[in-house]
């Protein structure tokens, strides 16, 4: 039992980890074909992982409706929303356009899914304003640097920023867009690079732990 519960799974991690790792250094068509196949497999397997989420969601809301729990009526709309996209998708075979005509899926993408998605993103604009007023605190020199960089970027992106800059600081001979480009190209590159390198090393080490079966957190307990 230990064999099929533990050893084989860890053998799978090791074998597939090593093979995909090695394929990076092997240009031979066989290695390319291998990576191709395994990538397709991964696509398929992870699509089933999506089903896990779907089932969980359905189960939660089904249970809520059945129990008539708090706000169970809303749970019905989860299924309505799901069907509002999936039924048109099946009717139109997953295509948003057929010829020049918008299919039912195209319609529900445009007026339901995309509307909801874009509005959710747009709500962020309001939170930005509220953050700016209530929690953007310049309490240290570091935060001041953040603020100044943000200020230059925010103003530099709109024409009125350049006009204000010209009035107030035009005598310096520097343009706002020049300054903006400098910040984007110089100090912020250094900051980003430092973070990226740190993250890359962390990811490599974690991946090594996974391949060698040292990291097992993702499997949970026995």
């Amino acid at each position: 039992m230990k064999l099929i519960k533990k050893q084989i799974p860890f053998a799978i991690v090791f074998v597939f980890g090593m093979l995909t790792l090695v394929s990076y250094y092997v240009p031979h068509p066989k290695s390319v074909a291998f990576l191709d196949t395994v990538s397709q497999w991964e696509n398929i397997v992870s699509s089933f992982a999506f089903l896990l989420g779907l089932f969980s969601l359905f189960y939660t809301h089904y249970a809520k409706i059945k129990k008539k729990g708090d706000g169970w009526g809303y749970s019905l709309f989860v299924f309505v929303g799901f069907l509002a996209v999936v039924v048109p998708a099946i009717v139109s075979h997953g295509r948003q356009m057929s010829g020049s005509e918008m299919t039912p899926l195209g319609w529900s993408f445009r007026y339901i899914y995309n509307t909801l998605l874009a509005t959710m993103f747009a709500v962020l604009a309001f939170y930005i304003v509220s953050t700016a007023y209530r929690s953007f605190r310049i309490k240290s020199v570091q935060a001041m640097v953040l603020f100044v960089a943000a200020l230059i970027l925010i103003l530099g992106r709109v024409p009125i920023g350049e006009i204000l800059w010209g009035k107030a600081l035009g005598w310096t001979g520097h343009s706002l867009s020049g300054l903006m480009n400098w910040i984007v190209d110089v100090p912020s590159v250094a900051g980003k690079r430092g973070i990226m390198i740190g993250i890359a090393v962390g990811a490599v080490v974690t991946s090594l732990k996974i391949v060698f079966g040292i990291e097992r957190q993702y499997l949970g307990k026995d």
Partner: protein
Amino acid sequence: MLKKTLELLFNIDRRWLFLLLALSIFIPIVRPLGLPNKNISADVRHVYEKMNSLPPGSFILLSLDYDPSTRPELHPQAMALVRQAFERNLRVGVVTFIPGSTGLIDEVFSTLSKQYNKVYGKDYVIFPYEPNIVAVLTQMASNLYGIYDKDKYGNEAASLPVMKGITNYKDMGLVVDVTGTSSIDIWVQYAGDKYNVPLAAGVTAISQPSYGPYLQTGQLKGLIGGMKGAADYETLLNAPGKGTSGIDALNLAHILVVVLIVFSNLGLFLVKYL
């Protein structure tokens, strides 16, 4: 006294801030303020001038690869480009490589073709969505009818008057890719570099800086970036539209954010030392 007022201001219901933002964005939509837009970007001007230098009757190809998610920035750019093309009596072909763009393309042409009395098939043509951009770009180098044998409405493409004398990139005056994806890289790599097609592009403001190198090397003749780019183009065309009202809205909203940050921090400073 001042301290009290300030403290009161800090505890202001944030819904007032929301309302402030909503107004600063909504008012310019209803009534564009036309705040001055003096610094027209050179990269935008290059696109405009390139289009203007084409003799009437030239064929330009637009690759409109944006969907509703990047519409606010890219749709005004596409509108301005087509407007200029129609004004200058250029022939326009449209291709697209993302499925969500089709409704938006219809919107551009249904509005502008009426305004400029342009006829489908004679002055412009729209090709259907194709998923594989690399294959299409390679094919268009020799004979575009190999892929686009029919237009979007199923007409024989080669028989349309608008396509007269057009078989591949050599017959096109300019290609402009308006995109929210990274399709410009593919255009540059598979069409611009290989077959010397004059290329220009319209992109979102966020991705704009990463195309600097292409401009320096001349791989892109010009670049329209974000809402500001669209507004610049409309200014050049002298036809204020959604780009101009958009940049009005952004002007106000950006200033609002800066003012709020400065105000709240100054206030905090005062409260502390009063």
